[in-house]
């Protein structure tokens, strides 16, 4: 019950540990998450505390264990599946989009599907095109899922706890570039965060910047740069992509009249388009300029460091996009 400065990684471990203590029906499955604590150490200590029955090293078989999570959820358990790299969601995509997401609806709401899929993604670490994707765009359109994207230790902790208690399937996109980032978290408490809605991180009156995951610190960096130029940017972490609630973003835009979205995905098919479309709908008369989107380019992420860096949004490129509008 103490407010502590911990890392995003530690926040994940704390949330998992606390929720697994709280409810014996929870269990976690994934590759190399047992004695070794996970390739990204996001399951550190779980095996020691909860044992092999509830902390399960799986074969390399994402369809198998993600599908098994559905079976567990339908029969009384609350499984958590770890996908080592979000990129691997491709190999179990069917289970997620046709199975997990639709099962309850197709049953006429007989069944509930209380499960969590944690997928660790993101670029900037020179992992190349098959190990650097965040992955949200692939599932953004899938009804029946809840999709959240924690950008800080507090969110990683609070949203993961909520996700585990939620009776619906929740996909959590974690970012490996954030794992060592630090922030204050009140662990051991019932600090649950909602699984919908966005969060204003920095108030401002001149422009609204909406970002997610590792783009959030970069958006905050952009706000600093803009501040120096006398532009007060409001920074919002969209945080939850499905169901998507953009009312607070529209509210902000009614004040700032300028909207810029920042995401670590290609422009076409990203959530930025949805935010732009919804906000244009809700705050049309308030917009001073067409909303802008800062995204990845429309090609796979290159491996070479200077090319990867050039492909990713930066505080500078975000600030430039804002300045072009105000």
């Amino acid at each position, binding site marked *: 019950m103490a407010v502590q400065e911990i890392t995003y990684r530690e926040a994940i471990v704390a949330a998992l540990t606390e929720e697994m203590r709280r409810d014996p029906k929870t269990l976690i499955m994934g590759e190399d998450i047992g004695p070794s604590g996970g390739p990204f150490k996001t399951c550190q200590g779980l095996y020691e505390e909860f044992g092999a029955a509830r902390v399960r090293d799986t074969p390399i078989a994402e369809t198998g264990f993600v599908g098994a999570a559905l079976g567990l959820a339908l029969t009384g358990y609350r*499984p958590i599946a770890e996908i080592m790299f979000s990129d691997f969601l491709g190999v179990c995509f069917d289970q997620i989009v046709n199975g997990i997401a639709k099962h309850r609806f197709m049953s006429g709401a007989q069944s509930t599907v209380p499960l969590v899929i944690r997928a660790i993604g993101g670029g900037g670490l020179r992992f190349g095109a098959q190990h650097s994707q965040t992955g949200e765009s692939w599932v953004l359109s899938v009804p029946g899922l809840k999709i959240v994207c924690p950008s800080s230790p507090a969110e990683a902790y609070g949203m993961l706890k909520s996700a585990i208690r939620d009776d619906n399937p929740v996909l959590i996109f974690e970012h490996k570039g954030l794992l060592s980032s630090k922030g204050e978290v009140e662990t051991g408490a019932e600090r649950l965060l909602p699984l919908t809605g966005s969060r204003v991180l920095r108030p401002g009156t001149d422009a609204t910047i909406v970002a997610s995951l590792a783009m959030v610190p970069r958006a905050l960096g952009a706000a600093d740069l803009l501040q120096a130029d006398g532009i007060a940017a409001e920074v919002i972490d969209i945080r939850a992509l499905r169901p998507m609630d953009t009312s607070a973003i529209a509210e902000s835009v009614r004040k700032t009249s300028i909207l810029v979205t920042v995401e670590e995905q290609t422009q076409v098919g990203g959530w930025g388009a949805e935010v732009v479309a919804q906000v244009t709908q809700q705050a049309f008369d308030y917009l001073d300029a067409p909303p802008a989107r800062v995204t990845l380019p429309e090609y796979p992420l290159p491996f070479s460091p200077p090319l990867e860096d050039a492909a990713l949004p930066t505080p500078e490129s975000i600030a430039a996009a804002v300045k072009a509008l105000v």
Partner: protein
Amino acid sequence: MKTARRGATGSARRAPAAKARGGIGHNAAALSDADRLGLFKSMARIREFEDQVHRSYLEGLVHGTTHLCQGQEAVSVGAAKPLREDDFVSYTYRGHGHCLARGMEMENAFAELFGRSTGVCQGLGGSMHLQDIERGLIGSFGIVGAGMPVAVGAGLTAQLNGRGQVSMSFFGDGACNIGAFHESLNIAQVWKLPVLFVCENNLYGEFTRINHTTPFEDLVQRAAGYAMNAVAVDGNDVEAVYAAVEPAVARAREGGGPTFIECKTYRHRGHSRTDPAKYRPQEELDAWLKRDPLILYRARLKELKLLTDREADQISADARAAAQAAAQRAAAAPWPDKDQDFMAKVYV
């Protein structure tokens, strides 16, 4: 009583030695006369249900497509027999038989096919997605193979619960070629889960015969790749199915792990309602029609003096009447409300 025909394959040969009780090869628990009559009635009920689905289809009551299981009733019924109420079952779009064998009400099943509010899934699922979670009917999967990992998960639940439950997964010969099959068998075997993999080998995946898609017709051989206990059985002989499944279920309940059970069978009709099934050699079809599981079992019960022809006819007639009446009631049920709160059906 017949015993299950052992698969004459390497996998069976190399299967772990049968345990004293519950191992494959051990005689199944004996069936009483009442059990036997029950098996026949259950098969007749499924047959008449499916025949009624076909008639209702022609009347325009069944929407979209539908996948009937006439000819495969002995599998659903024989395999369901050793199950307890608290066991779990997953199955496919060709799943009416599995649902009925577990006691699903005909009326609610018809109503689902008709898209009515009284359907088991309130009309949100349809023919391919009958579900009845209270009866352990955890899901009917439209994507080939997709139900198998889910059954593995239910098997893990069973193992963790420690109450001797089992999970049974029905799937076709065609499903044995997709990745989900492989991952499921491997995980179940590594974790020694109480899962019964019941393969209904009806020799066809849609319009394509097994020899074009699989290196052999005896799918029980697949189990060798997982060193899994396995057995092949005449899927048109309901008692043979029971005799193969019962010990495997008993073994699973006792912690002996999964079993792969290949049931050799045949579907009388086409793959789905638009398929006249012209791709099948007439002799093959004729041979299998002669081995209709209802005809076979009727003869057997007659031989055992448990059933006269008249009684058998009566059972079928009763089932037909029940199916007709259920379909009629279902057809009279209201459509679901267009203005209902659908989001409450998506999320809890």
